[in-house]
């Protein structure tokens, strides 16, 4: 998925912005900063979901809603703060996605109503806008659930009501708002038991906090595209970075290993690098630091000379990303896809891993879209996969319930005849592919495929990302959990243990064949050992093993 890069305002513009009262352009910059900072922290917001499998999308929904709003505001091109607010609220309404997106759109709707047709916004009007935002947000629900984004906007407004006067300046007001939002988010587990049980704070509330914090960071001249300085273990800062797209103007990747002089401050190092480029990461191991940055062509030597000024440079690696992306595209499609004759039925499959993709290719799919549990492809990704095929009969295999919606939306934007087979996982996708009749009608294929997906049952083995109790099964963070046909059935200490327990739970007599697809983080040796055990235990069953290469799920097991 390509992400829109937001151009940060120059120093001069920021300076202009701090000047209260704020005009329409200033408000736009604030909103844009909120969006950029939210995008930077999107994955964190997504991770605050209350189920043990990584499928949170609150952050994504909020980003999409904010993006629609900022796009609309961008086109407004007005200096009038009221008009700008209205355009922004309109965009948020149109682009609202998910529950948190709807509430967010309602917050901005109230916010903009208070601005009315004012030329500029000063802190007292800002306060009035917050009050109206809170009132409007609460009007949208009969029985408000506290401990959510609603509570956060309420607490923020209350804090502002207490302290904002005519003499307050914008920067102080934002400091106050961000502090109040932070405290409110920290309190959400006290108000909403499920959050406490899961050990997280509310994701929507946290998202709203990031939006306000982004606005403050803009005024404080802090970088918006680097999340708070964190040191990763050295091996996590990869030399060759997996790239889908290159940010405009950031063509070069520079990686430097260095040993800093006595006094090294990570914070200021991050800040200074932030002026040179984007996507900054710093790793450390045994006193050696590794720095990773993307910069423009004409600035590619700056990180080197800068790093030389603070320490001893050990090693430098530089790469032209544009080349890398071009190269990767051709390398990515190693498997051969089935050529489609005009008028035949083409199948588009969503696949989470390389190994799985090549199995799909061997079964005869016409196009493959990469995606899965936490990397949902966009509607555009899906449409562009089949739009150029020489046929108007297309079958989509989403292979994950999180992708159903995107698939349904893809149907709406194309003139081709599309059938979606509701495959919830990859084995169901394979089962459906085995029934493909390229020369049959769409209806015949649909019936056959829908029948086939009932016949395969799927076990999925993954690691819980936090402690929780679901369906009466206790799960601790880091424990291995087993899902059977999408339901959590058992938790275990190791993957081997999980596989054994799964086999015990399943009525093995009902099946003849077990197919195992192992994920990206499993070694072949480990899988072989595991499979030997299964073969010994169930000598009458046929056991097959394939490299799936999927992330998150160590094993996907099909029972037929």
């Amino acid at each position, binding site marked *: 998925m390509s992400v829109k890069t937001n151009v940060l305002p120059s120093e001069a513009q920021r300076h202009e912005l701090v000047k209260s009262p704020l005009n329409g352009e200033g408000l736009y910059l604030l909103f844009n900063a909120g969006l950029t900072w939210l995008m930077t922290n999107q994955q964190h917001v997504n991770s605050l979901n209350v189920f043990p499998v990584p499928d949170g999308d609150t952050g994504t929904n909020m980003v999409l809603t904010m993006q629609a709003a900022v796009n609309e505001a961008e086109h407004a091109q007005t200096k009038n703060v009221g008009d700008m607010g209205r355009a922004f609220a309109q965009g948020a*309404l*149109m682009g*609202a996605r998910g*529950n948190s*997106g*709807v509430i967010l*759109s309602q917050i901005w709707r109230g916010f903009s*109503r208070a601005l009315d047709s004012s030329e500029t916004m000063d802190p007292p009007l800002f306060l009035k806008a917050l009050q109206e935002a809170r009132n409007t947000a609460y009007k*949208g629900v*009969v029985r408000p659930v506290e401990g959510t984004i609603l509570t956060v906007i309420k607490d923020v407004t209350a804090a502002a009501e207490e302290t904002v006067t005519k003499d307050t300046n914008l920067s102080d007001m934002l400091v106050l708002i961000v502090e109040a939002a932070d405290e409110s988010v920290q309190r959400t587990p006290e108000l909403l038991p499920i959050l406490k049980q899961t050990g997280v704070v509310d994701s929507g509330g946290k998202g709203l906090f990031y939006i306000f914090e982004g606005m403050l960071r803009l005024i404080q001249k802090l970088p918006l595209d680097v999340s708070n300085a964190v040191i990763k273990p050295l091996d996590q800062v990869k030399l060759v970075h997996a790239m889908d797209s290159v940010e405009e103007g950031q063509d070069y990747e520079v990686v430097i290993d260095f040993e800093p002089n006595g006094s090294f401050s990570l914070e200021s190092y991050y800040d200074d690098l932030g002026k040179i480029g984007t996507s900054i990461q710093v790793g450390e191991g045994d006193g050696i630091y590794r720095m990773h940055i993307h910069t423009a062509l004409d600035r590619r030597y700056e990180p080197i000379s800068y790093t030389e000024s603070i320490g001893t440079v050990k090693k430098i690696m530089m790469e032209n990303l544009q080349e890398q992306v071009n190269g990767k595209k051709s390398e990515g499609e190693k498997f051969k896809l089935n050529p489609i004759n005009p008028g035949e039925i083409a199948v588009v499959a969503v696949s989470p891993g390389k190994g799985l993709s090549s199995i799909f290719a061997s079964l005869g799919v016409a196009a493959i879209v990469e995606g899965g549990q936490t990397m949902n492809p966009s509607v555009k990704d899906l449409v562009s996969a089949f739009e150029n095929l020489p046929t108007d009969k297309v079958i989509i295999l989403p292979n994950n319930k999180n992708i159903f919606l995107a698939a349904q939306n893809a149907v709406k934007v194309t003139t081709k005849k599309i059938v979606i087979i509701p495959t919830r996982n990859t084995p169901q996708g394979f089962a459906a592919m085995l029934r493909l009749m390229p020369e049959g009608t769409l209806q015949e294929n649909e019936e056959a495929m829908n029948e086939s997906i009932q016949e395969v049952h799927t076990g999925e083995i993954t690691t819980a990302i936090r402690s929780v109790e679901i369906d009466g099964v206790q799960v601790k963070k880091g424990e291995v959990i087993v899902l059977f046909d999408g339901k959590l059935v058992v938790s275990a200490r190791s993957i081997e243990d999980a596989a054994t327990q799964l086999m015990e739970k399943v009525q093995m007599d009902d099946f003849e064949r077990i197919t195992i697809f192992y994920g990206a983080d499993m070694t072949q040796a480990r899988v072989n050992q595991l499979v030997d055990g299964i073969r010994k235990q169930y000598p009458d069953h046929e056991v097959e093993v394939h490299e799936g290469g999927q992330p998150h799920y160590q094993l996907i097991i099909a029972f037929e």
Partner: protein
Amino acid sequence: MTSQENKIGQIYILPRAIRTVARAVALQSYGVINLAPRNFLEAVNRLVCKDSDYGIKVATSAEGLVLELSLIIEYGLRIKSVSDSVAESVKFNVEKTMGIPVQRVDVHVRGLRISNAD
């Protein structure tokens, strides 16, 4: 009526109980202002009876419950997103509390409430 068997007997769950759960969940869902009577009978019932549970129809099919909600939604929200959320949380909560699979949830938007026209 849906029934499940346990070790010592049958458990019968009447549609009214399911409607109560669905109603509570729907009203907690963001953007839903109220349920709306589905027909004349329900409308009269609503006036006469104190705790009438209008606006929700429960049917059963081989694959599970089929729920039909008729709702009043707040004006100024994206109706599609609101409806999606209600349907999803009703399905999730009914399945969780009742232990019966829900096959479909159909949402009928009967009207919008305008609290702020802008």
